[in-house]
């Protein structure tokens, strides 16, 4: 982990300047160290694709990848993300070209109201990175921390299986 001290004297409770890489771009933010990563993404960096659902790590709506690991951004103080490499839903498409997982969600009906969708897609990417050929049980386990209230789980599981089929073996 990058060693980061808050700037100023040790008794100073103030904002600090932190650097991180977001979707491949170097960013510097001036924030309180206890601000939630979710709030920094949405309010400072204006990346509003990441959604807040429960705000307590139960629903997975705010899922992002830190150094390739799936996390709930509502539970991470920004200081703990300093120096890391972040991927949000905005980082998956290349220009107008959607990623394989995004396309599969669209085509299989894996998105309805859209609140869980960014988190579902990032959890799917995380799963497929670890297990490129997942079984249905792997898919259920990989997405078990992401709740959908439009009852679209079957279509979501179909979308992940479809994305796995389409992904390049490379």
């Amino acid at each position, binding site marked *: *982990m990058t060693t980061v001290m808050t700037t100023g004297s040790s008794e100073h409770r103030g904002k600090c300047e932190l650097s991180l890489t977001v979707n491949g771009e170097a960013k510097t933010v001036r924030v309180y160290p206890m601000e939630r990563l979710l709030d920094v993404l949405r309010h400072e960096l204006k990346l509003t694709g990441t959604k807040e659902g429960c705000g307590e790590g139960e629903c997975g709506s705010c899922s992002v990848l830190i150094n390739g690991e799936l*996390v709930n951004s509502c539970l991470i103080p920004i200081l*703990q993300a300093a120096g890391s490499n972040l991927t949000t839903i905005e980082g998956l498409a290349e220009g107008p070209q959607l990623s394989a997982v995004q396309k599969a969600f669209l085509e299989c009906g894996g998105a309805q109201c859209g609140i869980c969708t960014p988190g579902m897609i990032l959890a799917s990417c995380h799963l497929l990175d670890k297990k490129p050929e997942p079984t249905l049980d792997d898919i259920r386990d990989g997405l078990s921390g992401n709740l959908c209230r439009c009852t679209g789980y079957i279509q979501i599981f179909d979308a992940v299986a479809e994305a796995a089929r389409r992904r390049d073996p490379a």
Partner: protein
Amino acid sequence: MRSNPADYKLIAPGKLDAVVTLLAQEPGQWLPIAGGTDLIVQYAAGKLSARKLVSIWNLAELRAIEILPDEIRIGAGCTYTRLREHQVIAREFPMLASAARWTGGIANQNRGTLGGNIVNASPAADSLPALLAYEAELILLSVRGERRVPYLGFHTGYKQMNLAPDELIRAICLRPAFSGYLHYARKVGARNAQAISKVCIAALGRLRDGQRTSEVGGQMGGAIEDVRIAVGSVAPVPLRLTELEQMVRGKSVDSELAQQARKASASAIQPIDDIRSTARYRSAVLGNLVAEFIEQLGIPGSPSGKTA
């Protein structure tokens, strides 16, 4: 009401020495924070009384799983993901691997740590009965040095523990001494993932000479040589049911013993009614689980048995 981040201080010294020195300089003032899966929930709800936090997330000194000749030493900062993926833990301590898999979902498993689970001290924590059954020991660290304590007895009351204000948990030590045992772990919750237990159990047992006598004339057989039964969500702290263990040790496994154990389990616990369940349900289900464990001890099969 949501907390204001301006009211809180958080630093990340990046080295364990520096954290321990800070805890000694201002004992009780600084709260260590690892993956934040419990503390940030309290913080977001405006219920975190500590105002100064020191990050121990990802400290190299706390992350390792060391395989020593006579024990496995799990760094307190080891995540559930690492626990559930570790082959030696899956082989020697399958109930701990199961508990790691049952905790939260993938994102919480990537952040939640075993040391954090212990100091958060929830009576419903999934990993704690397994640590009690395997008779874990803790290495506690402060500027005064290290001390090693049995995990049994570490929790002294609801959210109370035998940990000085300047100490933190450095590692959890487990002796791989349970081959030939039935490892029986169950979690009863509303759903598989993201559910806090209504009742959980981790139990180990072995029959004399490692034998499981096959059923003869409908009777199970074989005397219980060693047994450890630990439960969660049924008392202010995770419990070892030592009186129940004493009651069944040396006895032959049969359905009568299973029924006696079912009855005795109820008197050893203090379950409550809460948002997740009722005392009556918890007591009844724990009785069923204890009876099932005893019955499975008598069933011939793979010595390591099955974990849910």
